[in-house]
């Protein structure tokens, strides 16, 4: 536990704001390997797994960034292959989107927030989905404990250095990691009275292609 903290008037929106460009320049100045993009006014910093702890410690301790909060930590599974189907833009008018991946990846997004300077940005880390492993950041932010357990539970990412990496939301003896895109929907054996298997939901028939 930390030492007793005395609230000072410098806390809560009074640290002076920093623009997203300045944040980007600050981090990229310290870590040239990091790449950044700004989409929809959201700054995303793409960090290699081996740099993650270093970059996050820098973001927390740096005077300009001073990210006191790790607001969120979540995974996304991007399987290999041509899984995301191209959509025709003929009637809806939205831009079309097509992704084909050679290697599957699990992307973990860390939302870092500064209370004193009122900004937030995203650290994005990718790890291969066949043997996902990332360094734990519980040593930097204690709040990462539950979040990392959730990502382990749902995606199977091994967070090395986590004090207690166990399942958190699924039962302890559950097999598989249900938020992965290759995890089957339905067909899971359960103790129903008359039926041992849940039929796969027919919502899957509602194709991802719209037009």
């Amino acid at each position, binding site marked *: 536990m930390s030492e007793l903290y005395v609230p000072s008037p410098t806390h809560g929106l009074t640290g002076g704001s920093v623009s997203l460009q300045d944040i980007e320049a600050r981090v990229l100045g310290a870590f040239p390997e990091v790449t950044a993009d700004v989409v929809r006014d959201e700054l995303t910093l793409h960090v290699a797994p081996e740099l993650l702890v270093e970059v996050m410690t820098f973001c927390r301790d740096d005077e300009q960034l001073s990210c006191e909060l790790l607001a969120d930590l979540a995974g996304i599974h991007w399987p290999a292959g041509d899984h995301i189907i191209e959509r025709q833009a003929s009637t809806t008018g939205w831009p079309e989107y097509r992704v084909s991946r050679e290697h599957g990846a699990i992307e973990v997004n860390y*939302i870092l927030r500064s209370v004193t300077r009122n900004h937030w940005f995203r650290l994005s880390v990718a790890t291969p989905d066949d043997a996902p492993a990332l360094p734990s950041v519980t040593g930097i932010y204690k709040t990462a404990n539950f979040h990392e357990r959730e990502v382990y539970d749902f995606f199977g990412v091994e967070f090395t250095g986590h004090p207690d990496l166990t399942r958190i939301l699924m039962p302890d003896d559950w097999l598989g990691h249900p938020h992965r895109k290759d995890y089957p929907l339905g067909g899971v054996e359960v103790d129903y009275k008359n039926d041992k298997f849940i039929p796969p939901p027919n919502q899957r028939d509602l194709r991802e292609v719209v037009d």
Partner: protein
Amino acid sequence: MAIDPNAETRTDARGTRADVKRDREVELYVEGADWETVVDAVEDETLTVNMGPQHPSTHGVLRLVLELDGEVVNKLTPIIGYLHTGIEKSAEFRPWVQGTTFVTRMDYLAPLFNEAAYSMGVEKLLDIEVPERAQAARVILLEFNRIASHLVWLATGGMELGSTTMMVFGFREREHILDLFESQSGLRMNHAYIRPGGLAQDVTDDFVQRCETLLELLPRKIAEYEDLLLRNPIWNDRLRDVGHIDAQTCYDYGITGPLLRAAGVPWDLRKSNPYSGYEQYDFDIPTESAGDCFARFLVRIEEMRQSMRIIRQALDTLPGGPVMVADKRIAWPSQQSLGPDGIGNDPEYIRHIMGESMEALINHFKLVTQGFTVPAGQVYVPIESPRGELGYAMTSTGTNKPYRVHVRDPSFVNLQAADVMSRGHMVSDVVVVVASLDPVMGGVDR
């Protein structure tokens, strides 16, 4: 009862002290023997006790494993997942608009906040601006929902400390607010009323009148609660100097909302990152410096008053106009007439799609069966829920369904701090600590 499973000769359940192997860790099972023999068999005084998941003070199915030294808590481990319903996964298999009916069931005491944050995420991905009337109506409903949520917190918290009067009072006033929600959305809870692009229906004619009645009633009632509790010696003894947590620890554990404000940090996303037109309204962020359970009580009471200030201003400046975006690719027209029961079909619109325009019919059919598509990308949308920062991290791949919806639920994050808050306190204080965290298990387990 005192059995060492590792012992080479396993004695019967009523084995005496000599039967327990001393050189190994003693594992104890309570099987109805004399308590004296249990106490004798224990070498260190630490006792591990399971509390929940079925326990009236754990707000649902929260399980706490307490390591006790006598009556003092050495360690508290929250165990969650009993209410996991896979909402995040289910949302990936439904059109975007149906997601609102899922997410509203997460934090069921603040359903409108889930809907609002989800809808704002979709709107940010779509890059659309919600009409002003819908924004103002959202603010009014959200603030009423905040009051209702705090009332439940006050009611259940009071009940756990033996104040059943407070429980009845809190639920009584909350029911008035739920009546307002019901008159608008048709449902007391799980409304699915705030939709991507605006609101499901325009607010009804008597909406303002109902709000006025509530705004007249609630200040008197909140003053009543303060009369009941503020100088109540039991309430003071149980809440003061219990569950203390300072601002730095809050940061460390990612704690936001009333807990952070009770630790002296004036942090509120409505002020720092205004959304849905909060920048127009004049309100204060209540803070306390003590950081204990009593400070959280004071903060929440004052937040209810500030919410009413916001509602007052929003009602006075409630603009006219539509409550849904005009883009026909996203929503069908919002100004449809309703039956006396609040539902029903609009003859004008039916005539248009059935009799006048084939394209309108096709569009309507596709909108209903497939939903709209959302441009690819990912967003993170945080809003200030009654429990802290409620964040929606949403990813779209350009299809009619979300690729991933992750919810940063404040209850989930705040619950981790129950350990540091209750260490060194008595078992009875654990109840107070958990109540002051105000976790909603629907949100924790999702």
